[in-house]
């Protein structure tokens, strides 16, 4: 036996061109941050913006071939490209929000901040295209470690430190579980390649129900559950989202969710497809509880960032309904929903980031009283985002839920779909409360909005346009999502 038999693998660098661009931009931004004398201006932000835009175009123009490169480490299929597109949109909007947010929190206008942001985006992209459990792990940690640091970026705010601490400890704890799961699956199947695991389990039905594999799958579910904020592993979400700088919260609520769901879909559908029937029996309960807990607790929140955190748990629940349903329609529905969720959530956090003051932020719901008339444009876009999150037509949120629940009904999970609709109705209460507060309540204090710069206006316009476009003309986006459901098997 020669364990170290070695062949130089075939490398296809075009397959990772978007990631290479992101990495180079990140390093350039880091060096620019320390070497340039100009510390106040938005130059660094625009530099990273250019990098992300370039990366986005590299994703769009990378063709439609389905290749597996770097000896199976990466699978460059249309699914991975769609996730990369979502990540680029998320990074783009986050940077636009951050360029404005630096007025509230000067610390984030540094090379480090944008460098970490870009590296996190890089990790998310790799998570979407990982073809090997090793790659899933490395990508996940690239993303997570960057975000641990980002969450604690406001060094003077105790809440920010607390947020970083909790996210760090629980994230590291969760990755321990994930890794143990990977190890057991590796032991049961003898390979870490996602496609090969799938084939092995097809050929060896006896292994499918071996305790080793089942234990591994259970531990992996725990690990992924932490990352996507699935019940009962959702406890960290509200604290971390409330404490982190608003721009970072927006980034992690949307980007991490998209990347983690991408990895979840690939690992569970491709590698563990043989277990799907058993998985759904547990997962549908979890999906139901995740939606319900998120929505019910969100009603009781008075802090809007906390409320959006619980709402993000609820949205993870809706996405899990799609995960349970399975099949082409469900995957395309989830991709559609992830993109729509990116637009509406980043938009909502962008509005919150406009209201912040120097030593803290206006994040209580009561702070929004009367703002709808004072700043009509802001009130209008916030209303659009809230309607979309509640799932009221004609918005992206409505169409996304429609596709996911349709897929659930088609797969026979009628009750799950009904509970999903009931949950959406519950959620309307607290989303509309934001709008009611903005338009029908007398302001308790005089709150002044930051003078919006071009960057944040652009971000909000893109987000609102995205939400409305996906709501009014959903078929164009859904067609792309439909073509993106081919995973390399």
């Amino acid at each position: 036996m020669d364990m170290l038999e070695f062949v130089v693998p075939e490398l296809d660098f075009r397959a990772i061109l978007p990631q290479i661009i992101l990495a180079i931009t990140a390093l350039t931004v880091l060096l620019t941050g320390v070497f340039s004398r100009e510390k106040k201006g938005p130059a660094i932000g625009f530099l990273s913006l250019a990098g992300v835009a370039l990366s986005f175009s590299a994703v769009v123009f990378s063709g439609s071939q389905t290749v597996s490169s770097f000896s199976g480490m990466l699978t460059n299929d249309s699914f991975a490209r769609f996730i990369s597109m979502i990540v680029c949109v998320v990074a783009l909007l986050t940077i636009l929000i951050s360029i404005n947010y630096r007025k509230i929190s000067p610390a984030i206008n540094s090379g480090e901040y944008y460098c970490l942001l870009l590296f996190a985006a890089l990790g998310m992209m790799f998570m979407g295209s990982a073809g090997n459990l090793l790659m899933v792990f490395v990508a996940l940690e690239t993303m997570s470690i960057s975000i641990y640091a980002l969450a604690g970026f406001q060094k003077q705010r105790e809440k920010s430190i607390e947020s970083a601490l909790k996210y760090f400890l629980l994230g590291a704890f969760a990755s321990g579980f994930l890794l143990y799961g990977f190890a057991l699956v590796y032991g049961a199947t003898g390979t870490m390649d996602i496609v090969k695991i799938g084939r092995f389990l097809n050929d060896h039905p006896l292994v499918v129900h071996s305790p080793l594999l089942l234990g591994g799958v259970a531990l992996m579910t725990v690990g992924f559950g932490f990352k996507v904020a699935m019940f009962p592993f959702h406890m960290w979400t509200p604290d971390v989202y409330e404490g982190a700088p608003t721009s970072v919260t927006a980034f992690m609520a949307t980007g991490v969710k998209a990347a983690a769901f991408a990895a979840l879909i690939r690992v569970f559908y491709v590698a563990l497809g043989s277990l799907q029937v058993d998985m759904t029996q547990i997962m549908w309960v979890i999906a139901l509880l995740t939606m319900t807990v998120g929505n019910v607790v969100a009603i009781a929140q008075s802090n809007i960032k906390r409320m959006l955190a619980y709402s993000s748990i609820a949205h993870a629940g809706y996405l899990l309904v799609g995960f349970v349903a399975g099949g082409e329609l469900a995957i395309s529905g989830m991709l559609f929903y992830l993109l729509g969720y990116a637009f509406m959530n980043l938009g909502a956090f962008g509005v919150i980031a406009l209201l912040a003051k120097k030593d803290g932020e206006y994040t209580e719901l009561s702070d929004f009283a009367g703002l709808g008339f004072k700043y009509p444009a802001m009130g209008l876009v916030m209303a659009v985002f809230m309607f979309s999150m509640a799932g009221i037509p004609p918005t992206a949120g409505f169409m996304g839920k429609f596709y996911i629940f349709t897929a659930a009904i088609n797969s026979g999970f009628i009750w799950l779909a009904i509970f999903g609709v009931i949950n959406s109705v519950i959620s309307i209460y607290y989303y509309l409360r934001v709008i009611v507060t903005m338009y029908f309540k007398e302001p308790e204090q005089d709150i002044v909005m930051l003078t919006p710069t071009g960057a944040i206006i652009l971000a909000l316009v893109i987000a609102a346009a995205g939400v409305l476009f996906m709501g009014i003309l959903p078929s164009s986006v859904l067609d792309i999502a439909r073509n993106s459901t081919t995973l390399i098997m």
Partner: protein
Amino acid sequence: MMVDHQNIYLILSALLFVIGAAGAITRRNAIIVFMCIEIMLGAVNLVFLTFSRANQSVEGTFMVLFIMAVAAAEAAVGLAIFILMYRKAGSIDVDRFNIMKW
């Protein structure tokens, strides 16, 4: 061959993992919590090496290298956060940092 002793290593690693997980949940000092998490990662490394040996495949061994590198990066970020905590509050007790309700 070591394969014959596979189960011993697996049981040892399972024990280590449980010790680490239990410590991470019950301890209140942030650094000790983090050390417990490192014990969990050590347990994972042991499993990977055992299976790498048993399956005669090199993938598991490489995974260990990556886990080690990632753990170092995690330790760097973690200690930076703990120093930040200490500067702000003069303590690294996890309970001390609980202004937000769970």
